[in-house]
């Protein structure tokens, strides 16, 4: 812990570093250079996982907001929320307290055509039986159609015609409108106020195992048609399509894929076999690391960081965990155990083992968060007035439910990118080099540098960021080989609490942690280190008012040296910034509805979860940085 003056100096060094008038980002499409350019980079907050009315499941839930609406919302404008009345008026308006810096609409590529066909009078297939069922009984139609696409070998519905030609043709309209909306929202002026990305979600669901990926395009040069799970049902085939139709197509197209919800992947997300079942080889590992530079670690349908019964017995791994290995467990709990390698930390550790074996790390990914909203509401992460995200079993289509969402779900998180400016190229480069982190919702700021020669007093220096870059690598990087005489790497670890808004203060920080994984004798190991803690007693929260008590810290910074470093072992380190306890959305919702667990009359239908001890009421919001890797010298 350092003094307030030192903290302010660090904040100043990070947030107020001198701007350059000359843009140095290499643009891959025409745009004016951003006036605000920071060579030491700034954190940009956004959401890369957003569904609109173009997604089949969102449409079934009654969402009417379009990609244009989603971008308006991200920029701070209000949008309507279902249920809608007969005249088409929404039941309420929602609005972000703070606009986002960037966003990407990621509607499901699968069923993009069918969604349009079933809702557009005159479109081919509109009068088909299955479209009639979907319009008359949307949730039944959703269950019938979506489950068909969740099979080992998914097939198209009959309305799609031979070779799915009709549905793929019909998907072109929505795909174009997604691109047009992104183009409209992207600020190409020197003001650089907002960045939109074109993208989609490849919705791989073999046997109900979630292997979804969000594809992010660097610029407006994109695939002619989004890749679909039905036609290309493995991750390898998605990557091949991205290579053939984008990266290697010489069209100026560039893209990455971001896996999400490995927590419900039944162990299929981070496989160490290829699609034929053979062990992954070096080329396969390098390919994956090239295309999948980020993983979405948290979102509406749960956290995917680490398992509570994992190698480190990490006490904070119980955060926002789903109790089943696939989303089928939401409707039909089977008691199946959670298989190995479903969490990001397990995969990051396994990547070290694979690196030692193959000479390449297939799981060399950084970490972000996002929402997976199905309300076209990017960045809607406030716990206090969470309206649900309509991506689960609780529908808002017909009426406002007693509780806004399943008690197992949460508002989701944010993606944060360290970039020189708010332009597509600058942000995409941050994603590619993994200089990114995720938060569970709050706008926590965190820096993480790794090197060999950082001074122990670096946190007090006014130019800590410049020294951090000059003397090492930021999050997402790889440590250089150890210089002569250095026995262990040093890390600059810093976190600042969410600054909040004039109406609502942010929650103070409780501690900074470094999570280390390493490979030893072909096995993965992990350990959690508390490297900085707020002084004073631990924070608490008053459930009746949701007031946060206890001291906490507005910022924490330390230089930490790995006490267990072995230069012969592959290792990786990432930081977890942990807030003091605060109320979870469920407690806010129950308080607002006047529930008193000692007064049974207040626990009306649908509010039972308010008084269920198994449903979490308090949480510790957090941020996870991308890792810094250490690769031992050959031999």
């Amino acid at each position, binding site marked *: 812990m350092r003094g307030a003056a030192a903290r302010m100096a660090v904040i100043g060094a990070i947030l107020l570093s001198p701007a350059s008038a000359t843009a140095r980002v290499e643009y891959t499409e025409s745009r004016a250079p951003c006036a605000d350019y920071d060579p030491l980079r700034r954190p940009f907050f956004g959401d890369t996982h957003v569904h609109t009315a173009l997604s089949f499941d969102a449409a079934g839930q009654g969402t009417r907001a379009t990609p244009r609406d989603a971008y308006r919302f991200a920029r701070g404008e209000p949008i309507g929320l279902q249920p809608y009345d007969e005249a088409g008026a929404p039941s309420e308006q929602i609005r972000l307290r703070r606009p986002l810096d960037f966003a990407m609409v990621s509607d499901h590529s699968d069923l993009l055509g069918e969604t349009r066909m079933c809702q557009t009078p005159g479109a081919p297939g509109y009068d088909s*039986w*299955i479209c009639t*069922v979907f*319009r*008359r*009984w*949307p*949730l*039944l139609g959703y*269950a*019938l*159609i*979506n*489950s*068909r*696409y*969740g*099979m080992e070998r998914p*097939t198209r*519905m*009959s309305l799609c015609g031979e070779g799915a030609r009709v549905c793929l043709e019909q998907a072109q309209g929505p795909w174009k409108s997604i691109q047009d909306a992104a183009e409209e929202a992207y600020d190409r002026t020197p003001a650089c106020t907002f960045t939109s990305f074109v993208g989609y979600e490849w919705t791989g669901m073999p046997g109900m195992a979630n292997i979804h990926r969000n594809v992010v395009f660097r610029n407006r040069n994109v695939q002619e048609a989004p890749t679909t799970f039905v036609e290309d049902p493995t991750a390898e085939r998605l990557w091949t399509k991205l290579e053939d139709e984008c990266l290697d197509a010489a069209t100026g197209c560039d893209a990455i894929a971001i896996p999400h919800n490995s927590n419900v992947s039944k162990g299929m997300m981070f496989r160490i076999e290829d699609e034929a079942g053979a062990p992954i080889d070096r080329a396969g590992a390098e390919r994956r690391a090239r295309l999948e530079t980020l993983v979405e670690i948290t979102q509406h349908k749960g956290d995917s960081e680490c398992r509570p019964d994992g190698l480190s017995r990490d006490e904070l791994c119980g955060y926002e965990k789903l109790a089943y290995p696939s989303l089928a467990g*939401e*409707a*039909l709990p089977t008691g199946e155990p959670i298989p190995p390698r479903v969490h990001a930390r397990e995969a990051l550790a396994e990547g070290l083992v694979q690196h030692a074996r193959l000479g390449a790390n297939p799981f060399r990914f950084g970490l972000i968060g996002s929402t997976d909203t199905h309300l076209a509401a990017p960045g809607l992460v406030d716990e206090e007035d969470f309206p649900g995200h309509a991506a689960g*079993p609780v*529908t808002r*289509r*017909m*009426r406002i439910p007693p509780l806004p969402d399943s008690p197992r779900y949460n508002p989701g998180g944010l993606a944060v990118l360290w970039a020189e400016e708010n332009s597509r190229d600058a942000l995409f480069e941050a994603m590619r080099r993994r200089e990114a982190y995720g938060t569970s919702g709050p706008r926590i700021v965190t820096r993480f540098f790794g090197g060999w020669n950082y001074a122990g007093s670096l946190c007090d220096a006014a130019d800590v960021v410049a020294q951090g870059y000059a003397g090492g690598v930021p999050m997402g990087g790889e440590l250089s080989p150890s210089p002569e005489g250095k026995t262990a790497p040093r890390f600059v670890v810093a976190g600042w609490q969410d600054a909040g808004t004039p109406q609502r203060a942010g929650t103070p920080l409780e501690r900074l942690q470094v999570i280390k994984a390493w490979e030893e004798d072909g096995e993965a190991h992990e350990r959690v280190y508390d490297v900085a803690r707020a002084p004073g007693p631990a924070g608490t929260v008053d459930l009746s008012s949701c007031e946060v008590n206890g001291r906490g810290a507005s910022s924490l910074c330390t230089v930490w040296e790995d006490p267990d470093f072995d230069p012969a072992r592959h290792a990786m380190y990432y930081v977890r910034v942990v807030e003091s306890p605060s109320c979870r959305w469920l407690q806010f919702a129950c308080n607002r509805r006047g529930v008193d667990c000692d007064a049974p009359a207040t626990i009306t239908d649908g509010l039972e979860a308010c008084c269920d001890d198994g449903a979490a009421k308090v949480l510790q919001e957090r941020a996870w940085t991308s890792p810094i890797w250490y690769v031992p010298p050959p031999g």
Partner: protein
Amino acid sequence: MQEKTARRLLWAAALFLVPVPLALFIGDPFVPAMRYLELALVVLITIFVEGLHGMAGPIFGLLGAHVLLYIGLFWLVAWVVARGLARLVPSALGPATLAIVALGIAVTATVPVYDSPFHARLPETTLLEVYE
């Protein structure tokens, strides 16, 4: 009215009017058994049109099993009620049976007792809406 006729009338009324739950399906539906039969037929037609894929079979099985269960259960209930009425008011069995059915129709047509999560727009709450 014969006891057999009263039993059949009560049985049919229960199947068409009494809201019953559907286990294992999200959303806590609460509609008459005949509504589940209608949905089961919708799923069956879907299977004929699109083939047996995904959850179509399990959903049809779930709906069908509930319909069969409620048909049997309500037959027993109707049998007991009809027998009771025949013993209590043997001379007014017909009017008593019709009164029960009329009361059921009146209540379900005016009080929002139903809840179907499958519908496209407004919640189906009364008899006038549930078989729209």
